[in-house]
C-alpha cells in the first residue's frame, strides 16, 4: 500500500486526478506545487521508500515525448519514448530504474492530452514513415492499469494515427482493458521474462512466470501482437538449464512463430547507475559478480557475455523465426 498521495495543486481538480483520488481516498493527501519538490531532493533513500512508495499526481510540463536513446528500438528508423509514469511498482534488482531517480515514489502524469498532441505532431513530421513510440522506458506500461487506464486512452490514439506504432513493455498481467478492445496490429505488447531462478531472486513483486504466460496467451488469442523480451539475461551457475526451462515453459503455451519480435540482452548498467544501485544494495550478489567496464557501461566480462548470448540465441532460434529476433546491440 502506498504511504500517502501528493498532488500538484494545478491538477487537483483534473478529471483524471479526481478518479485517482477516488481510488486512493484512504491515503493521506498532501498538496504540493510541483512534483519535483518531493521527487527530486537528494536526501532520500530509494531502498527505504521502495517499501511503501507514495503516489504523486502531477502534470508533465514539457518533454512528454522524447527521441529514444541510440540502440533502443526494434529496428525502425524513427523511435521515440514517453512515460505517463515515473518508476515502477515492481522491484527488480537489475532494473536501471533502481538507480535512476532519487525517489522511489510513483509519479502519475494526468495530462494525457499533451502527450497525445506531441505524438500526433511527431507522427505528422514523419508522414508516410512508420514511427515507433515506446511506453515502457521509465515505468512498466501496464502494471498500474487499474489506476492509470493508460491503454483506454493511448491505444485509440495510436489507432487514429496511420503511421504510429506503439510498444507496451510489461511484466504485469493487467490486460483486462485490452481484451475489451478491438486488437490493433500497430500496438505490440512486449512481455519481459527472466528464468525462474533469477525471477525468484531478483524480481520482487513481479507476477509469476506462469501468470504472465497466461496473460500473453490470452492477448494472442484475442488477436493482439505480442513480443518477448529477455533483457537482461542474468548470469548464475545454472543459467543455461534455467533458460532452457523457461523457453520450454513459454513455447509449450505460445507459438513462437506468431511473435511480433523477440529481443535478448545480457545484464548491463551505466557506471553511474551501477554505483548508485550497488550502494543501495551492498548485500546483492548481482552486483558482486565479476564485471567489466567498457565505454561507461558495466557488464559481464566479454567472454562470459559472448558465451551467454550465443547460448541463449541458439536456444531461442529453436522456437522463433529469424525475422522476429532483435538482439540488443549496445557495444560500439
Amino acid at each position, binding site marked *: 500500500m502506498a*504511504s500517502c498521495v501528493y498532488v500538484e495543486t494545478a491538477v487537483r481538480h483534473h478529471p483524471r486526478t479526481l478518479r485517482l483520488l477516488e481510488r486512493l481516498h484512504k491515503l493521506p493527501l498532501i498538496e*504540493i506545487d510541483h512534483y519535483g519538490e518531493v521527487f527530486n531532493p537528494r536526501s532520500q*533513500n530509494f531502498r*527505504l521508500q521502495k517499501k511503501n512508495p507514495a503516489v504523486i499526481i502531477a502534470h508533465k510540463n514539457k518533454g512528454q515525448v522524447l527521441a529514444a536513446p541510440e540502440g533502443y528500438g526494434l529496428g525502425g528508423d524513427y523511435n521515440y519514448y514517453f512515460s505517463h509514469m515515473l518508476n515502477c511498482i515492481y522491484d527488480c534488482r537489475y532494473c536501471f530504474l533502481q538507480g535512476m531517480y532519487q525517489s522511489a515514489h510513483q509519479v502519475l502524469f494526468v495530462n494525457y492530452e499533451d502527450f497525445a498532441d506531441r505524438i500526433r505532431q511527431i507522427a505528422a513530421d514523419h508522414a508516410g514513415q512508420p514511427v515507433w513510440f515506446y511506453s515502457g522506458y521509465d515505468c512498466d506500461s501496464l502494471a498500474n492499469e487499474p489506476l492509470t487506464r493508460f491503454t483506454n486512452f493511448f491505444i485509440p490514439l495510436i489507432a487514429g494515427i496511420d503511421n504510429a506504432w506503439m510498444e507496451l513493455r510489461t511484466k504485469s498481467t493487467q490486460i483486462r482493458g485490452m481484451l475489451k478492445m478491438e486488437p490493433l496490429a500497430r500496438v505490440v505488447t512486449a512481455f519481459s521474462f527472466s528464468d525462474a531462478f533469477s525471477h525468484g*531472486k531478483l524480481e520482487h513483486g513481479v507476477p509469476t512466470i506462469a501468470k504472465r504466460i497466461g496473460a500473453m496467451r490470452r492477448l494472442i488469442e484475442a488477436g493482439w501482437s505480442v513480443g518477448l523480451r529477455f533483457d537482461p539475461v542474468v548470469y548464475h551457475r545454472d543459467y543455461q538449464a534455467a533458460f532452457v526451462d523457461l523457453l520450454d515453459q513459454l513455447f509449450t503455451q505460445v507459438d513462437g512463430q506468431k511473435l511480433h519480435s523477440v529481443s535478448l540482452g545480457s545484464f548491463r548498467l551505466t557506471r553511474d547507475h551501477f554505483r548508485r544501485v550497488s550502494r543501495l544494495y*551492498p*548485500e546483492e550478489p548481482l552486483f*558482486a559478480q565479476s564485471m567489466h567496464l567498457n565505454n561507461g557501461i558495466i557488464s559481464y566480462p566479454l567472454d562470459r557475455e559472448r558465451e551467454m548470448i550465443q547460448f541463449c540465441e541458439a536456444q531461442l532460434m529453436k522456437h522463433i523465426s529469424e525475422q522476429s529476433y532483435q538482439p540488443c546491440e549496445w557495444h560500439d
Partner: protein
Amino acid sequence: MLIWVCALHCEAKPVIDFYRLKKSQDRHAFDVYRGDDMVCVVSGIGKIASAAACAWIAASYPGETSFAWINLGTAGGAEHQIGDLLQLNQVVDADSGQCYYPAPVAVSPLSGSACLTLSRPSEDYRSDTLFDMEASGFMHSALRFSSAELVQGLKVVSDNRKQQTGKDRQRISELIQRHIDSIHRQAEALQELDRELAALEPAADSWQQVLLLAHFSQTQKSRLRILWRYLCNRDFSTDSLLRQLATLNSARAILETLEQISFRDSEGL
C-alpha cells in the same frame, strides 16, 4: 541511533521520563540526555537553535553510520483541538518559502499536517496549517545527515484561536505525555528503519582489523570496503576471513582473495 530534538525541557520531559534518559554531566552547548541507542537534545526556541542543535549532536557521534530524528514539540493550529498530536507531512519556512517533506515509509496512524515555521511568535492562525518556530531549521539540518524517511516532526497542538497554553510548562508536558504511547510507536518504527540501514555497514572493529592487514591506497580502500561490506552482509564469518587474509602479504593479494570469494558466492545469486 535515534535523536530527539525538542526546543524546551518541558517538551522533552515526557520522552526523558519514558525512556529514563540520563542527563549528560559534561559541559555542552546544549543540554543532552542519553539512553540506549538514543539521545535527546534540548535546542532552545527557534529554527536556528534547532538547526544548530541537530548539527552539533550529529557531529558529536562521528562513528555512527545512521541517525533517525524526531522533532517533538508544540505548535499552534487554528482549528485543531488543544492536545491533538499530528505528524508533519510538509514543513514550510515562512522566511525563505523553502519546503521540506518528511517521507513516511508506511501509512501513519497519526493525522498529518503541514507546518509553517515562523521566526517570531504569532497569533495569526491559518486553518490549513500548524505553525511553530523550529521545524524548518530542524528539517534543514537533519536532512544533511539522514534521508527524509528517517526524519520526522511530531507536534502537539498547544494553542488555537480560542485557547493558548502559553508558557505553562507543566501543562505542555502533560499535553505531550498523554500521547507518549503513540510517540513511542513512531519512534520504534523509525528505529527499525535506522537499524536496517546501520546493519548494512560492516562492524567498525572488523573493518579496522582488515585495514591493519596491509597498506591500502585510497582506491584499494574503496574496493576493499565494497567487498568487505558484501561478505559481511552475506554472513561470512569475519574471524575466519581475517585469519585467511592474515596469511597474505600485500593489499593486492588481499583484494584478489576477497574478489574470488565474492565472485564464487555471487554466482549463486
